[in-house]
Every structure is written in structure tokens, then in C-alpha cells.
């Protein structure tokens, strides 16, 4: 196989020969498993988890393959390969997911071995993107660049990626298992809605350690993750997770798929008893075998060495000029660009949410363009965010205008990161076999209604999240406005919740009232926004704060007054 080396300076984990051999062996293993299924040696029931563990789903109309993008970070070379695959085997586009992965929705089963083979050329695969195993570990999309970063989450996410890969004990868990790590003061990884959420911190001596939140999750029974241990030292990082997973594997429910996630175990055992079980296991596991050696951490850290940033003045004259001359750019700058820890650099969010578009979709041409721009402006690397956007993390302020013009010309310049147009939506009934209702057309209708960037900015920070069924892949529970698709006697209806919050002050939203039709839903969202604008104090009060202050009543009254 011809390996195509990623850019040497990209802040990604660089495979060595052993990593490559592993992926090649797994590709070959899957090829044989497909043969054994075709010969009847494996039953469909036996083949299903094997197929899922390789990222292959059967959806409503076709197979879907989900590609792993470890902690959402990849190189321009890898993105270009994803574009190539999308052109060759899909319909010229791909879909970025809330797990920071990419999926192709129109795949032929017989093409999958070839796809996996092509992915392996750029050190990528589809392993453990599905199935009852530990899934892709996610982290802050601004990792390694954010001004408020305390610990580099990539290092520990990569350690976990390796440790959870084909874990012999934890590959047949009661249910899927999702871990997120945040190493910054602001939580951009939604850690408390994960099975295990990790806050990486530093103690007085500057040593890294972790707060462990366990049992968060959305779906049918949403729970906010509970603090199980305030401080786990770096050397115990793996041991503590091993202890949690062992308790879960032994005691997690297997009698009912809807009660099989760890959140239910934590809930049913109670936090105290669950913690006691974990601590007992941990006390015993702790020792040389499970100790995370600082040398390993250092070895992994070297993969994520900072890019060769130049010493620049923080103030950019070119940027100021562009800002003054182009209001649309000035708006994008305000909304989509975040502070970098190095002077003269910035973090740019590339919105995959054009007005009226499908959240998270990118055409292969757009992927190629972003790959080019990542090479030109960001050391050949980029990130996928859990809100289904892309991020170029190390852009010179001097070059932001040039970057934006190129993005904008390709429909990627929307200024709506974190605003009402930045909608998360699951694939819904357009693709998914589990869905009760479509999510995408509603997202499109809402983003078209609020297309005006000035209006979006006036409204300010407001996350809308849409799920097509109770499994909540669209994270509707933690949307400031959440929308859940339900089926009422064959008609799609939408239930609106308000007050959700995915950050550290995690809140599950409350249902506002009876479900509404698709058309009514768009009007209802607009009505909610109007009530908010009429009630907020000054420019600064966010939707969520106004809601907390005035309660549901004024919103309910407006939407359901006519009933």
C-alpha cells in the first residue's frame, strides 16, 4: 500500500509502522468476516456487531459508513482523501457528525473493503465508530490553540484512543460508551452529557489531573454527568477509567437496550454506591501495570508539538483595514473567530450551516477547498466540531480576510457560529431507520427564516438542536431551544423544549407545550425569539438568561395562545 504522509507540522498523531500494520490487519480481518458472512458461517445476528465495529450501518435507503476522526483532528491530506472517497463511492458529499466524525450516507456494501483500503492509505479507518464499545473520544475543537487552555486534551484523547482500541475486556459492553475531554476553562466539548466526561486540570504544582464526571447522556432518559472524583492524577488516568468500565461491564443492565447505558446504572445504584464500586476496583488496579508512565505521555505529547508559529504583534493593521472596508467580513470576524493563545493568530470556525443548508454536510469540492486553505493558513490541519462545523485553529490575523473571501465564495463563509443559524440536526427520517420524523428540512427552514446575519447577531448566542427521535443524536435536550421529532399517527410533529445548556452549567431543557407541526414549529421558534427580544435587558442578556429570569410563561402564552 502507498502511504500518503500527512503534513509533518500538522498537530495530529502521526502513525508509525506498527499503527499502519494494525489498521491493515483490521482491514484484512473485516474482508474475511464479510466472506464468512456470505458463506453463512456467521449469521446476520453475529455479523451485525462485527460490521458495526467497522463503522458500517444499514440505514433506510443504503449503507452508511462512518469514518473515525480521532478527537476531531485531521490533516489536509486526510480531508482530501475523504473528498476523493465521497466523489468515488458516495454522491459527492459527506456529513460531519456530532461525534466529530464524517459519514457517507450512500454506500454500497461491496465497496466498503475498497473504501477501508483507501482510508488506510492516509492512516484512517472506521473502527469503533459504532457498536457497544468505547467510541471516538471527543475534545475541544480549539485544543492546542485556545487562550483559556490549561491542559492539551489531544494528548489524553490519543492515549485513550490507543487504550480503547480493541480492548479485550470492553468490546462487548452493555451499550455504546462515549468519552469527552475538555482541558480549557470553557467547556467546548459538552463533557457532562457523556458517559464519562473528563475535565483536565492542573494542581498547585502544575501537574495534570482529571475530574471524572460519569453517567451523563441524552436519549430517552437524559441525565447530567455526576462528579465521581474531583482529582485523578495523571498516572492513574487509565486505571480509573478501567475501573469505571469494569464496574459498568459487570453491573450495567443487559435486559433492556433503553436502560443499558451507564447513566442508568449510576442512577439505579446511586452515586454513592457506584462510586464505592469504582473506588474499590481502582484501589486494586492501581499499580505498575496500569500506571500511566510520564514518558508515554511525553511521547504522545510530542506528536502534538505546537506548530512553528511566528512571533507576531497582536495587532494586525491588514485586519483592521479589511474590517473597516467590508462589513460582512467584520461580522464574520466578530462571530466566527476566537482568540488564539499566540499573539497575531486567531482560531477560525468554518460554518457548515449556510442559510437553508443541511447542517454538517460538505460537498467534496468544499472539502478540497478547506484542505487547501488548511495547508495555506493553518499548518495543514483542521478540526471537526461536535456542533458539525470545521475549525482552522492557527490562522494569522493578517490572513483572515483572504481566508474568509475564499470560504465565502464557496458558501462556507456564514457568520453564525453559536448563533441561531448554527443548528445541530441529526440525519432524521431522511436517512435513519430509527427516526420518527425528519430533522433536516426543519433545520433548513429555520435557518432560512433567520438567514439575515445582522438579525442573527442581534439575537445573539442561541443554540437550536434538532433530533428526529428520542435517541437524541441531535442533542435536543441541551439546546437552548430543542426540537424533538415525534410521530403522531403517521404525521410528523415537533416537541419544543427550552433552557437546555451543554456547557459545564449543564441543563436539560423543559418541554414548552404540546407538539406542533413542521410549519408551526418554524413560526413557534420565531415567536420564542420575539418574546426573548421583547423581554431581554439590554443587548447583553443571553436567551438562556432571559428564560431563566422570566420563566416559561410568556413564551408559552405566545405560542399556545390561540389554542
Amino acid at each position, binding site marked *: 500500500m502507498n502511504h500518503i504522509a500527512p503534513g509533518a507540522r500538522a498537530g495530529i498523531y502521526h502513525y508509525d509502522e506498527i499503527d499502519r500494520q*494494525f489498521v491493515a490487519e483490521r482491514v484484512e480481518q473485516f474482508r474475511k468476516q464479510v466472506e464468512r458472512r456470505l458463506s453463512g458461517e456467521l449469521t446476520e445476528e453475529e455479523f451485525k456487531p462485527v460490521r458495526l465495529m467497522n463503522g458500517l450501518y444499514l440505514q433506510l435507503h443504503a449503507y452508511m459508513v462512518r469514518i473515525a476522526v480521532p478527537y476531531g483532528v485531521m490533516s489536509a491530506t486526510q480531508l482530501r482523501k475523504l473528498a476523493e472517497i465521497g466523489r468515488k463511492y458516495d454522491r459527492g458529499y459527506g456529513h460531519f457528525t456530532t461525534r466529530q466524525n464524517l459519514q457517507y450516507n450512500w454506500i454500497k456494501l461491496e465497496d466498503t473493503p475498497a473504501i477501508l483500503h483507501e482510508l488506510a492509505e492516509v492512516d484512517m479507518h472506521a473502527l469503533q465508530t459504532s457498536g457497544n464499545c468505547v467510541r471516538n473520544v471527543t475534545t475541544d475543537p480549539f485544543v492546542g490553540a485556545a487562550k483559556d487552555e490549561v491542559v492539551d486534551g489531544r494528548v489524553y484523547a490519543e492515549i485513550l484512543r490507543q487504550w480503547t482500541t480493541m480492548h*479485550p*475486556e470492553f468490546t462487548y459492553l452493555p451499550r455504546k460508551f462515549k468519552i469527552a475531554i475538555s482541558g480549557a476553562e470553557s467547556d467546548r466539548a459538552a463533557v457532562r452529557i457523556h458517559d464519562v466526561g473528563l475535565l483536565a486540570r492542573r494542581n498547585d504544582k502544575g501537574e495534570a489531573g482529571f475530574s471524572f464526571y460519569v453517567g451523563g447522556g441524552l436519549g430517552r432518559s437524559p441525565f447530567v454527568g455526576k462528579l465521581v472524583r474531583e482529582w485523578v492524577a495523571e498516572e492513574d488516568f487509565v486505571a480509573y477509567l478501567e475501573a469505571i468500565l469494569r464496574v459498568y461491564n459487570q453491573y450495567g443492565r443487559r435486559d433492556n437496550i433503553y436502560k443499558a447505558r451507564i447513566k442508568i446504572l449510576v442512577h439505579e445504584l446511586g452515586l454513592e454506591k457506584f462510586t464505592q464500586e469504582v473506588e474499590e476496583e481502582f484501589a486494586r488496579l492501581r499499580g505498575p501495570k496500569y500506571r500511566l508512565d510520564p514518558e508515554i505521555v511525553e511521547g504522545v505529547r510530542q506528536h502534538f508539538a505546537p506548530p512553528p508559529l511566528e512571533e507576531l504583534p497582536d495587532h494586525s493593521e491588514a485586519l483592521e483595514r479589511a474590517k473597516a472596508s467590508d462589513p460582512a467580513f467584520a461580522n464574520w470576524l466578530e462571530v466566527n473567530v476566537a482568540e488564539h493563545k499566540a499573539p497575531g493568530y486567531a482560531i477560525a470556525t468554518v460554518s457548515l450551516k449556510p442559510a437553508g443548508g443541511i447542517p454538517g454536510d460538505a460537498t467534496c469540492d468544499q472539502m478540497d477547498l478547506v484542505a487547501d486553505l488548511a495547508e495555506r493558513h493553518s499548518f495543514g490541519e483542521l478540526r471537526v466540531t461536535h456542533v458539525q462545523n470545521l475549525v482552522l485553529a492557527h490562522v494569522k490575523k493578517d490572513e483572515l480576510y483572504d481566508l474568509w473571501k475564499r470560504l465565502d465564495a464557496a458558501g462556507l463563509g456564514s457568520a453564525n457560529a453559536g448563533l441561531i443559524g448554527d443548528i445541530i440536526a441529526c440525519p432524521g427520517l431522511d436517512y435513519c431507520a430509527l427516526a420518527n420524523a425528519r430533522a433536516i428540512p426543519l433545520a433548513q427552514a429555520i435557518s432560512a427564516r433567520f438567514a439575515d446575519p445582522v438579525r442573527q447577531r442581534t439575537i445573539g448566542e442561541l443554540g437550536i438542536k434538532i433530533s428526529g427521535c428520542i435517541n437524541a443524536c441531535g442533542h435536543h435536550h441541551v439546546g437552548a431551544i430543542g426540537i424533538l421529532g415525534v410521530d403522531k399517527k403517521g404525521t410528523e410533529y415537533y416537541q419544543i423544549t427550552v433552557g437546555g445548556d451543554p456547557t459545564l452549567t449543564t441543563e436539560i431543557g423543559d418541554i414548552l407545550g404540546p407538539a406542533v407541526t413542521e410549519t408551526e414549529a418554524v413560526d413557534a421558534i420565531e415567536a420564542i425569539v420575539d418574546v426573548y427580544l421583547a423581554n431581554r435587558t439590554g443587548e447583553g442578556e443571553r436567551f438562556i438568561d432571559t428564560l431563566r429570569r422570566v420563566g416559561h410563561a410568556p413564551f408559552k402564552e405566545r405560542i399556545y395562545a390561540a389554542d
Partner: protein
Amino acid sequence: MPLIENGRIGEDAWSFIPDGEPVPNDRPVIISFERWQAERDSFEGRNARLGVRLKSGTLAGAIAADLDRFSLVALEFPKFRDGRGFSTARELRERYGYTGEIRAVGHVIPDQYLFLVRTGFTSVEAPEGTNPDSWANALTEVTIAFQPSLDDTAPLSLLRRKLKVG
């Protein structure tokens, strides 16, 4: 049923005696954990080897105190997707220091064989008509692992090592 050991079909010296049937004294037998609990005194002074079979919901701790009475512990997989046995085996080895045979019985597929070996199983009862090549292949098709296995005593090293099994 074929017994898989070290990647090959092997001789099975053991037989499972269903509850209620008389237990022969002259050859190795496996009894259920429930029978052991109910009739443990009747096995006092037995010379032939004894094995015990645990349902997947019976965890290692339940049998820990009696482990010195058994030359074999059989762990049941009611469905291959029920992965509790992997933890039970590991607990038997690591936590309770059990050194006898640990056997996987019930519904297990060759694709799990490497995991079984790495968590401390020594044998697998495979279904009639199983393809022996698939079991042999399962130990050698993936040669890299990212976690310490049961027999590793060294620290995590670089998290990754070439496997020696198979």
C-alpha cells in the same frame, strides 16, 4: 461439542452434569454454581477433579472463596454480545489469583477468541460443525494490541506491543 484450546481442536476430558443427575466420582465433571451452593457438602472428600459453571450474571466474587475447590471454572455466554464473562475471567485471574482452567461456554464466536485469551480464558466450547480455521486464524490475524494483557507484568510501555499469543 468441539473444544478449542491453543487455537486447535483439543480433547475434552470434562463433562457437564446437569442438575439432578448423579455426579460420577471417577472422572472430571462440571456442575452448576447453583448445585454447588445447594450440595457443596456432598463433594467433601472427592478425589476426581471438579469444575463449576457460572451463568453470566454470576460474577467472580460469588465463587472467590471456593476457588481452591475447582480445577475449572466455566463461564456462560448466553449470547455472544453479553460480554460480562470477559470481566469475570479477568477478575478471577487478577483479583482472586485463580490459576486453573477458565472455559467459555454457550454462544461464543471465533471473532472473540483473541479477547477471550487476553482476558484469561484457556479454552472454548465451540458449536458442532464450527470451522477450526476461523479459530486458528483468530489468534494470528491481528498481531498488535494497545493494552496490557493478562500475562503482561510490565507497565503499559508505549501502550502498544506486538502480541505473543498464537
